[in-house]
Every structure is written in C-alpha cells, then in structure tokens.
C-alpha cells in the first residue's frame, strides 16, 4: 500500500509539473509580454513613476529573459506563494484568489454532493426495475441531460424562474446580503439562490453517472452470488444493497477522475451565465482582456484541484479494492 501511495504521489507531482508548463505556455501565447500593454498605457498617461514600476515588475517576473528561465522563475515564485500580478485589477493574483476561492469551492462541492445524491438512487432504481416507466424516464432524462449545454440550461432556468416569479435570479446573494457577515438570514438567502447553479452543474455529470452505475449493476445482478443470496431467502432490499450495489460502486469511485473535470468545466460556464461571485467570471474577464498571469494562475489552480481530487479517488479506490493496489486488475 505504501509503495502504491508513493507511486501515485510521484505521478501526481509529474502531472502537476506538466500542467504548470501548459499553463505557462498559455500565459506566453499572446504576442508581446504583459508589460507591453501596461507600459504603453502608463506612458500615454505620462506617468514616469509608473514607468519605473513597470520596469521593476518586468525584472521581478523576468519578462526580458528566455522562455525556460521565465518558466523556472514563475514556478519558483508560485512555490513561495507569489502567483504573479494582475495588471487589470492592479492587485497581486493571490489577493484576487483569496476573496473568491471559498465560494467557488463551496458551489462545486455542493454540486458534487447533489450529483451523487441524485445519480446513485436513480441508477440503482433503473437497474433493478429495468424497462419500467421510471427507468425509461431516467434514460430519457440522461439523454437530454447530456444533450443540453450547461449554459443553455442555466439560461432556461433563469428564464423560467423569471416567468414564474417575475424576479431575476442572478448571483448567489440578494443585494442587501452581498457584503453582510454570515447570519441565518444570509444563509437562507444563499440557499434560495444557490440551487439553480448547483442543479445546472450537477445535471450533465449525473446523467453520465446514472448510465455507468446502471450498466455496472446490471452486470452484477445476474451473477451466481446474487442468485445464491436470493435462494437463501434474504430480503430483496438487503440483498441488493449489501452485495451487488457495493461491487457496482467500485468503478464509480474511479469515475471521480472524470466527474471532477466535468464539474469544474461546467461550473465555469454556469457561473459566468448566472454571474456568480466565484473565480470563473474572473477567468473569463482575464482571458478577454489578455490578463494572462491571472488567467494562467486560475487555469493552473483549477487543474491542480482536479489532480488532487483524482489522487484522492485513486487512494480511496485502492483502499476499498485490494485488487487495484496490488495491480491484479486494471481499473
């Protein structure tokens, strides 16, 4: 087990390095460096002190040096907690992060919880009652869930709520609570807002998880050990929940690996449409204005988040299923 954990950790470090390289490549893609635009702006306003600070910043981030040197410098800065400088918001990137990261993680975490709690009961139900009306309904829901883009679902829900209540649901808080400290009233306000994004983010992933769970469970239901248990007179409910469901859930834990990228991808689009105070709208704005240090750091952060999630799911999987950590089966 220790060997397995070390191997996984090493792979994770390698992946993170590769990811950081990709992110830095994206930062470097736009022609000219970030300072060109910034310095031009300062020069036009005749700000000589600003010109000097631009030169200082350029040296600090090594913008006048070759790609690899810049990359190493960037990585070193990040390791010491300096994610670069957002030239649009005129703030260090880490400061921008700090103010929004909590809400981002909260919304994504809620979405994952909702995703599993929708998908698992439906998946089990439609496998046990195969071809029943409920199963058909779940299948149709699954197909539509996969076919409707997240942003469209968010728009539709927004429009429907507007038609029904006449109010616009945007953001996560009503205006009066946006800057207020947490209280019961604020929590309630948050809950009345958060269900739309959470539902939207969860749908696409839930549709996929239902399909996987249903297929896995159907494979298990015909196995001899199920027949044996039934012959012994075990109640149907205990029988199903105790044996085949547990086996069918194992590959599901492995799906965390792709559920996380899906959830993060869809939370970005959804948060932008619904104008949530999360990191995603900042990413879009940063990209549109080519504020690349901020954008690169955000992409790196989102990538690392999924890598960590995948690592945790791998370790969990190895803990649940000894066949995986000993390498007897491919997961």
């Amino acid at each position: 087990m220790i060997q397995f954990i070390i191997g996984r950790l090493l792979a994770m470090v390698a992946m993170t390095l590769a990811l950081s390289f990709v992110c830095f490549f994206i930062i470097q893609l736009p022609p000219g460096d970030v300072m060109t635009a910034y310095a031009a702006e300062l020069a036009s306003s005749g700000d000589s002190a600003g010109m000097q600070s631009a030169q200082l910043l350029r040296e600090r981030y090594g913008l006048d040096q070759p790609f690899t040197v810049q990359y190493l410098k960037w990585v070193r800065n990040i390791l010491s907690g300096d994610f670069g400088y957002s030239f649009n918001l005129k703030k260090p990137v880490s400061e921008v992060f700090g103010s929004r990261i909590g809400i981002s993680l909260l919304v994504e975490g809620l979405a994952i919880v909702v995703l599993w709690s929708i998908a698992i009961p439906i998946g089990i139900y439609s496998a046990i009652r195969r071809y029943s009306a409920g199963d058909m309904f779940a299948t149709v829901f699954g197909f539509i869930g996969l076919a409707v883009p997240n942003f469209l679902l968010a728009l539709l829900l927004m429009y429907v709520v507007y038609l029904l209540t006449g109010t616009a649901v945007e953001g996560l808080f009503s205006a009066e609570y946006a800057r207020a400290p947490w209280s019961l009233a604020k929590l309630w306000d948050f809950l009345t807002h958060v269900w739309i994004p959470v539902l939207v983010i969860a749908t696409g992933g839930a549709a996929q998880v239902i399909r996987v769970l249903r297929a896995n469970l159907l494979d298990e239901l015909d196995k001899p050990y199920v027949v044996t248990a039934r012959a012994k007179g075990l109640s149907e409910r205990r029988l199903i929940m105790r044996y085949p469901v547990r086996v069918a859930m194992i590959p599901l834990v492995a799906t965390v690996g792709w559920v996380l990228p899906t959830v993060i991808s869809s939370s970005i689009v959804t948060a932008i449409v619904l104008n949530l105070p999360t990191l995603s709208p900042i990413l879009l704005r940063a990209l549109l204005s080519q504020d690349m240090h901020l954008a690169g750091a955000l992409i790196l952060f989102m990538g690392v988040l999924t890598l960590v999630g995948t690592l945790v799911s791998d370790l969990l999987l190895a803990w649940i299923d000894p066949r995986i950590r000993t390498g007897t089966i491919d997961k």
Partner: protein
Amino acid sequence: MTKPTSAHGPLTESSVAGLPAAPSPAPASLSGHGTETQFQLVWRAFKAHRLAMVSLYILVLLYLVAAFAEFLAPNDPHDVNARYTYAPPQELNLFERNEQGDWRFRPHVLGYEVEVDPVALRRTFVDDPSTKYYIQLLPKTHAYKLWGLIPAERHLIGVEGRRAVLFLLGTDRLGRDLLSRLIHGARVTLSIGLAGVGLSLVLGVLIGGVSGYYGGLVDSVIQRVIEFIRSIPPIPLWMGLAAALPRDWTPLQNYFAITLILSLIGWTELARVVRSRFLSLKSEDFVAAAKLDGATDLRIIWRHMLPAFSSHIIATATLAIPSMILAETSLSFLGLGLQTPIISWGVLLQEAQNLRALADAPWLLLPGLLIVVTILAMNFLGDGLRDAADPYGSAR
C-alpha cells in the same frame, strides 16, 4: 473479422431466409453467392435500430440545410433593420378568403404595426391586417453566391416588394432575421463538429495506432500523456488557448484555429479506442500470417487491421461530434470562440445572454433548441452505429 467471407456464408443465408422482405442494397450479390460484405451486414444491423434511423434522417436534413444555406435562407443574415429590432415571429397564414368567400391556398404573413407605450417608451409589435405579404416560391430577392462561387438571386421562399418583410422566427437586437441566421449558423456549427472530429480522427488513429501496435515504452509514454490530458478540465484549457488567438485574424483563420484547438484535446478518446482494438487484433492469426508473408508494418495496419475495426472507429467518431459541437457552442457563447461576423449557433446564443433580452425576445433561445436536437440525434446515431459495428451479433 477479416476472415474470408465464405466462412459466413451459412450465417448470411439463414439470416436472409429469416427476413425475406428486408430490402437489401445489393440483391444481385445475394442471389449470386449468398454472401454479403461487411458493410452490408453493418447496414442491415443498423437499419433495425429505429431511433438511430430517425436520427439519421434528421441529421441528413440538417446537413442539407447547412449545405444550401444561401438558397434556403429567405433574407440576408447580415441585413440590419433598424425598424424591426426584436420583432416577434410572424404568423404564417396558409389560406386566404377571396371576394367570393372561398378559402384559397395563398401563404402569406401580415406586416407589423409598431405601437409605442407612452409611459415606458417600449415598442411593441402588433399584426397589421391591412398589409399582406404573399410568400412566393423561388423569388428573386437579394443576390448571393452559392458556396461563395456561383452567383444567384433566387431563393426557395421569400417576399417581394420594397417594404415587404418576412421574419418567420422573429429578429434579433439589430433586426436581423433569425431564421436566416439559424440556417447560416447550421453550416458553421455542423461543419466545425465534422472538421474537428476529422482532425481528431487523424491524430487519434495515428497516435493510438502507434501506441497499440508497438507497445512497450512508446505505449506507456503515450498513455501517460493521454491520462494527463483527460485529467485536466477541458473548458478552461480551451478558453486559455482560444483567448490567445490574435484579434486581427480573418474569420476563416479564426474558424480553423478553433477547430484545431478543439481537436488538440478531443483526440484522446479516439486514440484509446484505436489502441485497445490494435491490442486485441495484434495476436489474431491473420495478422501473424500477414507478418510471415513479409508484409510491411504499414501494409499490415492499412490492409488488414484498419478494415477490421473501421466500423468501431466510425461509431466512436460519431459519438465524439456532440462534444465538439458543445465545446464550440460554449466557447462562442462566452465570446472566446468564433467571433462575429461568423454566424454559429453559439454566436447566436450570445444574443440571449442576459435576462432582459430573453424576457423581450424569448425566440432568441431557438438556436439552443437546434443544438439539443442535433446532439440528441448524433448520440442516438452513434449508439446505433456502435451496436451495429459488430454485425455478427456477439452482443445480441
């Protein structure tokens, strides 16, 4: 699967006897030697899938519309009408009562009358029964070039007259005809799905083939790369790459760059399928036989292995198109993908981005409906193809 076809002779004959009414694409070969090609077998299995057949018809129709967009669109999609911003869809009346009181078939629409609310200063459109615009078949309206080459001015339908307007699906913020824009958008959105998957297919077959055929170190390096790409969330990566595109590129350059970006990440699934097929076929007798015959690697792959799993590749590729379309639409919707003046369904949905526009003009969500229909049809078609890809019936 590439065993001599005669081995399947009895199987084919019995299945033909069981289905005497089944129309076969090549009856001559049936009566001749009682064998069918791989393609005929797959096609027969596919036809049994009713949902997939319906989806195929829908998709063929959509692609035909995309191909003849200029001819089918009643208006110029870029034509701005300041008088008719956010005009609602016109009702299409098929029949008209003439002086004798008989109903006659004369499709027409009513003109708009604009009423301004004196308090809110909001404009509302109402039907104007006094102006009727008759819809003509093949009228000469605005000039265009079919596929940018053939000059023409006839359209399938249209209205003639200087003040005549035909907005069957309403107009957008600038008074442009939504129907025409949808038809033109179909061309871009549907083709970018195909082009992106085509490019991914090349990458996937090449890389997956190398990985599966040679194995060993090459295989594990490629597998790690694939794992890496699949473990990072695609949308931020796409967004980052798309945002870096130079702003002064022409629409065409932009289009190809976005296609390239989408397929740079999209090839991994195809590569995985190709690799696993290669791995399972590598140990087959016919591959060993070809090797002993002294065939080159390239010839073995091209002549013996590829035909054996081409139907699987086609099925996987079809299932990959929806995610391409979804990605393009999402990127364009966010303003990072295709840019105006290119019209794609994602670009059109940008118009519906805020609640105000939606409340005033809910018909702007129609591109979304088309996206959903297209993706559903693609998924059903892909599922049908996947089931039919192995016509020898191991699964059924």
